[in-house]
């Protein structure tokens, strides 16, 4: 397992080239280029903003964080990265089956490329976020920003661990992808992205506390949106540890299934 891990490290230049290729191939021949990646989140952003600030502007309207669109952006951006990485990692080994069967090639590179491609899109999205923040006249740079890389790393570990797990298991259980699609919808609504944790009734809080993405979304919102010092490092530390364990576990499962991949895809 360690030898394989070293090999992955050796292949890091390949990963970065493949990420560049993914991005390039996706945007080649399209007029709007990389903005297509943001069409869906921006669309969601528009719809949710309309629904929650105009249509459902009832009793609780006053409790919503303002500007609501910018608040949504903080959660939807990392969620898009998370969701697209997981969904794509479900099919990445199957579509890349030719490589696995015909070329000596560490297969874990494929889910890794998916996750890192999502990361690049996420980072580009942060630039769009900065532009929107400037539009609303909000400060773009704050002292809290030093925490951002830490959160990104935690999310990276979490996503990568799940991607390894899902990509190798989907080869054996093809309906995992459909299951995941539904699970992610549930997960999205169960995560404080459209609302804040403080709006959740007390008796449901524990469910949200168990959801890892609650802490990630809250951290992004704290850092990018709310004023005041970021002090949510304690749950983040726990989550970081758990994500690291998940990454090891995901890699372990992937490694165990490695030899069956070339035969099953």
């Amino acid at each position, binding site marked *: 397992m360690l030898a394989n891990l070293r090999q992955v490290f050796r*292949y890091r230049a390949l990963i970065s080239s493949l990420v560049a290729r993914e991005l390039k191939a996706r945007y080649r021949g399209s007029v709007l280029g990389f903005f297509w990646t943001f069409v869906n989140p921006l669309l969601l952003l528009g719809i949710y903003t309309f629904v929650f600030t105009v249509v459902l502007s009832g009793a609780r309207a006053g409790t919503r964080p303002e500007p609501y669109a910018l608040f949504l952006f903080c959660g939807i951006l990392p969620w898009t990265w998370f969701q697209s990485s997981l969904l794509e990692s479900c099919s990445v080994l199957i579509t890349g089956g030719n490589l696995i069967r015909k070329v000596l090639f560490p297969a874990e590179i494929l889910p890794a490329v998916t996750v890192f491609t999502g990361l690049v899109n996420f980072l580009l999205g942060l630039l769009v976020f900065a532009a929107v923040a400037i539009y609303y006249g909000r400060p773009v740079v704050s002292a809290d920003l030093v925490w951002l890389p830490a959160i990104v790393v935690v999310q990276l570990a979490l996503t990568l661990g799940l991607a390894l797990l899902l990509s190798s298991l989907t*080869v*054996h259980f093809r309906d995992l992808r459909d299951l995941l699609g539904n699970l992610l919808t549930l997960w999205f609504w169960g995560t404080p992205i459209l609302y804040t944790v403080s709006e959740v009734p007390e008796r449901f809080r524990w469910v949200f506390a168990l959801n890892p993405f609650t802490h990630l979304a809250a951290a992004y919102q704290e850092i990018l949106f709310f004023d005041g010092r970021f002090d949510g490092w304690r749950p983040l530390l726990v989550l970081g540890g758990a994500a690291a364990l998940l990454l090891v576990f995901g890699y372990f499962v992937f490694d165990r299934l490695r030899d069956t991949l070339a035969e099953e895809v």
Partner: protein
Amino acid sequence: MPAVEVRDVRKIYRRYGRRKSFGTLKSALLSGGVLKHLRPDSVFQALDGVSFDVRPGATLGIVGRNGSGKSSLLKLIAGIGKPSAGTIHVTGRVSALIELGAGFHPEISGRENVFINGMMLGLSKAEVARRFDDIVAFAELGEFIDEPVKTYSSGMYMRLGFAVAINVDPDVLLVDEVLAVGDEAFTHKCLEKFADFRRQGKTIVLVTHTLDLITRLCDEALWLDAGRVRAQGDPKRVVDAYLTEVAGAEDRSQAGAPLPAAVATADSAAGASGRWGSQDAVIEQVELVRHDGQPGHVFESGQPMRIRVRVRAARPLQDFVFGIGLFTADGVCCFGTNTQIEGRVPREWSGAGTFIVDIDRLDLVAGAYRLDVAVHRQDGVPYDYHRLLYSFRVSSPLKDTGIYRPRHQWMFEGGIGISGSDGDGAA
């Protein structure tokens, strides 16, 4: 220390899922647990205790029928998958030509694909950059290198794939039948490159159905049959043994009265074989007899061969011609004749009979040959035509080339001193 060391390798492929080739999580949960589902339902043993060595600088050819485990073995040597039991040890960098251009992305340029493909095969970015010009030159792409790969012709695609794989500069090169896909010029180029490799003392393992390549290129051959090593050693001997077996299987399949399509021999790719005719007269058996009176399929060059054909007329015939034709494996006619050409006039024929063609000296160079046998009317309408259905092999200690080996002698006059036994070429 051998370049490739294969020890008692077994490979078992597992099949999962009861009805489908892949399982679903739902069925796994319903049938009691994911772990149980991960247990295979049936197994297929592709390799069954294979052991051999390839010494550094040697070229090993692997022959065998489809499904005998050749490609599985090659993949295991390449490290794509692990053996179920046994060990494989390869010294040095391996490059596998299993599928050319696997991993090319159609949307991006040839240049970017070369870099990514090269890195997939284990080179660093700088190493690819250093070899880039060689790769483009070999692939003959010119300015097309900056066009998206999807615009390439299949020839360009293959050349580029080959160029990248070969420029990885491996110590051990594994080749799986890639030469079968290209045109003549491409094949020629690849063969030149292989020769280059051999001169540099690199190890090659070659899987091919082109038996000619095995005898021409390889230092050693291995015959794989149903996952086991049937024979190993001198390429000619192994190929002969393989051909004899394939021909034997063919004969056995011809034992029944209605002749089934012949078992495809490895060298039947050129020229379609078959059987047709009105069946008013039929060829029941064709036997090739060696100088010692034994029927066989391998003949020493320069030795006699007797073609003995048992025929039967379904009704009394007055109009009939017997004919034979000798062809090389790739379908070039070496000799063809019949009773009409040679001035024999048919009178009558009823019931069973045998005709024999005696060839005093089979003056052919070593190689695989095939035989036409026919019975037809004088105007050519066939009663029973057996097209390329029989194969035999000519073996020879000499490696002379061509088809025909005339009896000949070398003589030297004047100031030429030359030693070596003087023969008539038939050895």
